[in-house]
């Protein structure tokens, strides 16, 4: 359960920690007399924006609105939450990737550094573990200089920025603070793009109307994890491990998956979030939805009622929904779901076989 901050919010945090960032504004607030060139970017909660046409250079303020409108018209990614405009940074001599994350194997913060750019995933970042107490130590600067070939001045400059990023991790309890690229210029370094991932203060801290942001971001606002593939079959499960295992069973059967959702904490309390999750899942237009839940405490009847509510709020045909359920009050759950037109099974293998058979028939 994490929050992926928008670039504008992430940069606000970094600037507060003393890290140089370009001057920037929301599109509506860009000063009229501003000199160009400018950079306009869509604000979304996912990476890979530039490759999908979500970043454009604009020669002058006068051309900004038209350029932003054209960029939005061509955009095919997740729902856009705004347009962020910045002054173009010139004099860039080199670009770096810099991040502070947690080394899961050793359970310590770790500094990652590499040459920056849009294809950084294809390069191997140098990892420098930091002390478990979250304190900065100068050996990290020496090591960066050693492996990246920085001169002393650049190493010191990058080290100061990394130190500030570590402070953000500790003070904000961030899971990830990433700058890519960090633009190195003759006298300074500027964070041109930034990602900050914070823990959700608690599940359901966001209003449920975040569902307008699409499945992945909408679920994230509910403390629920969702992923989106290219296939036409959606899977919704009552646990993370169960989601992985269900995805495995369907993949074995050559089913290509679209939405993949772990209901997680949404099943607790009154379970009202389940209906919204089902509706958001349906809005990804799946050919079928497999709901797979095995409840220990929450009644299957309660879950069933919310699934039906979610389906009623969507255009999804209940006949395309297969529910595999086990747990308390599963007979009542079955009655509710079957009355709504869903197919209900208790056996996981049978449920996966059924979904795979229908999927294969649709392909024929």
């Amino acid at each position, binding site marked *: 359960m*994490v929050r992926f901050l928008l670039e504008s919010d992430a940069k606000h945090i970094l600037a507060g920690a003393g890290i140089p960032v370009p001057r920037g504004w929301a599109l509506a607030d860009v000063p009229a007399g501003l000199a160009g060139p400018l950079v306009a970017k869509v604000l979304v909660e996912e990476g890979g924006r530039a490759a999908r046409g979500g970043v454009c250079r604009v020669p002058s303020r006068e051309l900004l609105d038209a350029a932003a409108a054209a960029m939005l018209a061509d955009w095919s990614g997740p729902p856009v939450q705004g347009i962020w405009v910045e002054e173009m940074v010139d004099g860039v001599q080199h670009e770096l990737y810099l991040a502070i994350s947690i080394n899961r*194997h050793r*359970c310590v913060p770790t500094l990652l550094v590499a040459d920056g750019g849009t294809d950084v995933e294809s390069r191997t970042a140098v990892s420098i573990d930091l002390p478990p107490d979250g304190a900065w130590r100068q050996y990290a600067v020496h090591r960066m200089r050693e492996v990246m070939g920085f001169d002393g001045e650049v190493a010191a400059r990058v080290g100061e920025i990394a130190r500030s990023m570590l402070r953000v991790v500790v003070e904000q309890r961030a899971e990830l603070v990433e700058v890519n690229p960090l633009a190195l210029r003759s006298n300074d370094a500027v964070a041109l793009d930034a990602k900050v991932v914070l823990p959700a203060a608690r*599940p359901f801290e966001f209003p449920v109307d975040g569902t307008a942001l699409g499945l992945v971001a909408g679920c994230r606002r509910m403390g629920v994890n969702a992923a989106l593939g290219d296939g036409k079959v959606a899977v919704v499960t009552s646990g993370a*491990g169960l989601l*992985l295992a269900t*995805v*495995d069973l369907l*993949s074995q059967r050559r089913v290509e998956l679209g939405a993949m959702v772990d209901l997680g904490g949404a099943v607790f309390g009154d379970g009202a979030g389940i209906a919204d999750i089902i509706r958001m899942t349906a809005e990804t237009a799946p050919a079928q939805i497999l709901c797979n839940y095995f409840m220990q*405490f929450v009644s299957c009847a309660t879950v069933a009622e919310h699934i039906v509510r979610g389906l009623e709020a969507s255009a999804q045909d209940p006949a395309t929904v297969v529910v595999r359920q086990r747990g308390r009050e599963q007979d009542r759950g079955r009655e509710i779901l079957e009355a709504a037109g869903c197919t209900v099974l208790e056996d996981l293998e049978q449920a996966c076989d059924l979904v795979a058979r229908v999927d294969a028939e649709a392909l024929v």
Partner: protein
Amino acid sequence: MSVVVSAATRVAVQGITGGAGAMFARRMLDDGTAVRAGIVPGRGGTTIHGIPVFDTVFGAREAVNVDTSLICVPGPAVYDAFCEAVAAGISTVVVYTEGVPAVEAAKMVTHARATGVRLLGPASAGIVTPGVANISDLRSDFVTPGPVGIVSRSGTLTYEVIAPLADLGIGVSTVCCLGGDACVGTSFTDVLPLFDRDPATEVVVLLGEIGGLGESDAAKVVRTMKTPVVAYVAGRGAPPGQRLGHAGALVALAAETAQAKAKILGEAGAHVAGDILAVTTLTAALLDDSRRTAPVGA
């Protein structure tokens, strides 16, 4: 016999007045688990379900000598609760809460190692030895005593093993859930030797996931075990680069894939299941028919 918990375990619930804490406490009492205290600052002197509530873990230790804590407070408060439990002398801590900040989970793991405290979690579904103690989100009527030990990163995945085994009349010795976060306090390598020494455990089921290297580390222990191990690593079909479910279920290295980890476990002598359904088949095949009890509901 049992693993980690015992009949002498005396439990405190930190956050007992919250939704999850109150639910756990009620059920543990009903199951006969020795819940002796709840901890909620400012609520000391009250009771919930007849359980005395204390302001601090220190007070609960002094008054009712609890040795195990189940932490159900919200994520941002978990680190403080854990540090208090350690400082007060608690020897085993189960953190049920999900959403603990990773940087604080890392500090908890380091702190637990330095102090010798057994930490399950964060995001652990808990631990249960049927008929002995149940500090988990598994219903006691769902787990019957038997010869299969289960160690898992996922809680819900254990249901998919426990239920079909029960349908065959096979129960469990202990179910130990490590937690789905990237940094957790207890690993497969910590638990497997305990099962290997447990006379009640005849087969161990290891349920892993993509992400991390815990299953690969476990293979080194599997190689030395006398007790047979059935292993399943979930996530072969997971989309690359996307977090699926657990915070720890994200592949960063080639060695963190389900395929890589299953291969290493198989080479170490584990009986590797290709999917969750095969876990039951492999496990049952390793057990002599005489070890089965009557099927549940028979």
